[in-house]
């Protein structure tokens, strides 16, 4: 009689029990968010618009820096680009702002490609400053366009803001006036954008490319040794993030309805705050930027009046977190309690043995 060796079965598990719970919670939150305009004040809606687009920007920066290891302090280039493209494309005789958004995404990607090829010649900290220089070039170039307001900027034609589809429908449905209706439409657009960004990031990270990104995040040299084409993956992420950032920028300026080079390409608003959000929340995770955005929103709401002191506090907080809790708040919680809301890790499950061994992948 032959001794039988137990048959071992290996499989990769990407969804477990906590996932179903968080999926349920997320769905509920989403439903509440969508129906919010029916019972929320205009003030709250405006604040949430701000929260959502900062969250979306942070998700993008996180993908770039936390996963692909591309620490950029020049993403404001694409925010400003998106804003200015919106103003340019929708100017009298142009296209509807809603149609402009995907076009802006494509144009941003197209400009990001040569930008990346140039900037990728630099490494590490020098890469970071290089992206800043590029953003400055974008700013200075756009300041030259007199028809877009030159150095002082310009306002969006009221015709454009009122040509956003759905305003009349919202006015009738929720019994609000035009400006409030515009805000509500903006709110839904930005909500769609942040959910879309989240979905895109989530799907990307669960894909094969995402596995490569996780590998790059954990140990670049080892990833290269395994055959991951680092350059192409990074290029792809840079271009994709540029497209998303450009679209977010266009939404931001659709809502603000006024643009100037210094504001659109502001390092503080579109990089410093975004980095702060990502770092405080937890870099290299999907949950991190979400938590960071909420914290930042609260800080901004209650402390922004303190002007320079507020910014000093933010800077100091960022430094302290970087030194003592580099994984941010979510990183700390996640490690302590083993929680993950958005599962992108792969678990190796071995069945057929007494003990179930699972490995982080």
């Amino acid at each position: 009689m032959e001794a039988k060796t137990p048959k071992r079965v290996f499989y990769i598990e990407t969804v477990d029990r906590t996932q179903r719970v968080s999926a349920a919670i997320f769905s509920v939150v989403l439903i509440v968010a969508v129906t919010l305009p029916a019972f929320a004040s205009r003030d709250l809606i405006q604040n949430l618009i701000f929260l959502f687009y900062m969250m979306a920007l942070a998700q993008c920066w996180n993908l770039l820096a936390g996963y692909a290891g591309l620490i950029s302090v020049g993403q404001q280039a694409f925010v400003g680009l998106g804003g200015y493209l919106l103003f340019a494309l929708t100017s009298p005789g142009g296209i509807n702002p809603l149609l402009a958004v995907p076009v802006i995404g494509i144009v941003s990607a197209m400009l990001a490609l040569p930008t990346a090829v140039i900037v990728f010649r630099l490494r590490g900290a020098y890469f970071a400053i290089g992206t800043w220089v590029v953003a400055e070039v974008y700013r200075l170039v756009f300041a030259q366009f007199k028809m877009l307001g030159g150095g002082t900027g310009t306002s969006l034609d009221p015709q454009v803001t009122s040509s956003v589809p759905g305003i009349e429908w919202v006015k009738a449905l929720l019994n609000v006036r035009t400006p409030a209706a515009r805000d509500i439409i903006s709110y839904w657009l930005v909500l769609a954008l942040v959910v879309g960004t989240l979905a895109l990031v989530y799907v990307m990270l669960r894909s094969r490319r995402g596995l490569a990104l996780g590998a790059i995040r954990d140990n670049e040299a080892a990833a290269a040794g395994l055959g991951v084409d680092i350059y192409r993956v990074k290029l792809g992420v840079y271009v994709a993030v540029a497209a998303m950032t450009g679209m977010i920028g266009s939404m931001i300026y659709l809502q603000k309805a006024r643009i100037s080079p210094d504001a659109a390409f502001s390092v503080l608003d579109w990089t410093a705050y975004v980095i702060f959000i990502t770092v405080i929340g937890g870099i290299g995770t999907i949950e991190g930027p979400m938590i960071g955005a909420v914290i930042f929103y609260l800080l901004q709401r209650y402390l922004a009046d303190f002007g320079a002191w507020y910014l000093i506090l933010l800077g100091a907080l960022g430094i302290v977190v970087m030194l003592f809790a580099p994984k941010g708040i979510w990183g700390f919680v996640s490690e302590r309690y083993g929680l993950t809301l958005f599962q992108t890790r792969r678990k190796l499950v071995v069945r057929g043995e007494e003990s179930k061994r699972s490995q982080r992948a």
Partner: protein
Amino acid sequence: MIGWLDALIQGVLLGGLYALFAAGLSLIFGVMRLVNLAHGDFIVVAAYAILLIAGALGLDPFLAALIALPILFVIGFALQHLLLNRTLGRDLLPPLLVTFGLSIIIQNGLLQLFSADSVRLRSGAIETASIPLGGGIAVGVVPLLTLLSAIAVIMLLNFVFYRTTIGQAFRATSDDLEVAQLMGIDVGRIFAVAMGLAFAVIAVAALHLGLRANFDPTIGPARLLYAFEAVIIGGLGSFWGTLAGGIVLGLAQTVGARINPEWQILSGHLAFLIVLVIRPRGLFPRALD
């Protein structure tokens, strides 16, 4: 014709200022692979320090700068020893983000202390003095001094790096951190001394910044960008290269300004990008690295 010649001369002189900005950055990156994103802001801090000392003691800026020099050395040493040494390691993010945070803190701290008004270091008659070169072209005494200071600083840095024991320690640490420790080199202390030295150079840069133009709390980041561009254009690993880089940048800016005054800064950035594309290692890189 005269206008172009003048632009060239001004460009070279401006390059001296940029070389001063860049020398400290180059030193720090060379020794410890650290880029201090608050570099430009520290130059502004030093400028305000010189202003304060000059005002409090009734001195001219040159003497005030002399007093500020050792103070800045100590600040740099302390900064590295207490804060930045903790950020160094394999991960790229901490030093970048900590220095970025510092940049924000410094700018806003200076705003609180000094308001957003721009100020200047007053040096009396020398401010407007110039040396005529004939043909209607004159070289300002202050810009000339700046260029000469840049050359002197670079000669000094080369002397320290190549003719002193501590310079050997700098180079060894830069080459191979692990083996440097095997020599008994306390790398933490070496980094702190290097940062102190960089801050002393920052003091000199600040003097010339303040003499040449107005300054206010927010101009730091732009100086960082110029310093960085000068280093990259010149090539990593060589102090003379950094001087060359500064001069190329200065020339690009003044020539661009001659074509259209609005294009001054943009021309500099474009020159940087062009060099990055055609000679990514810079114009005068060291053979190694």
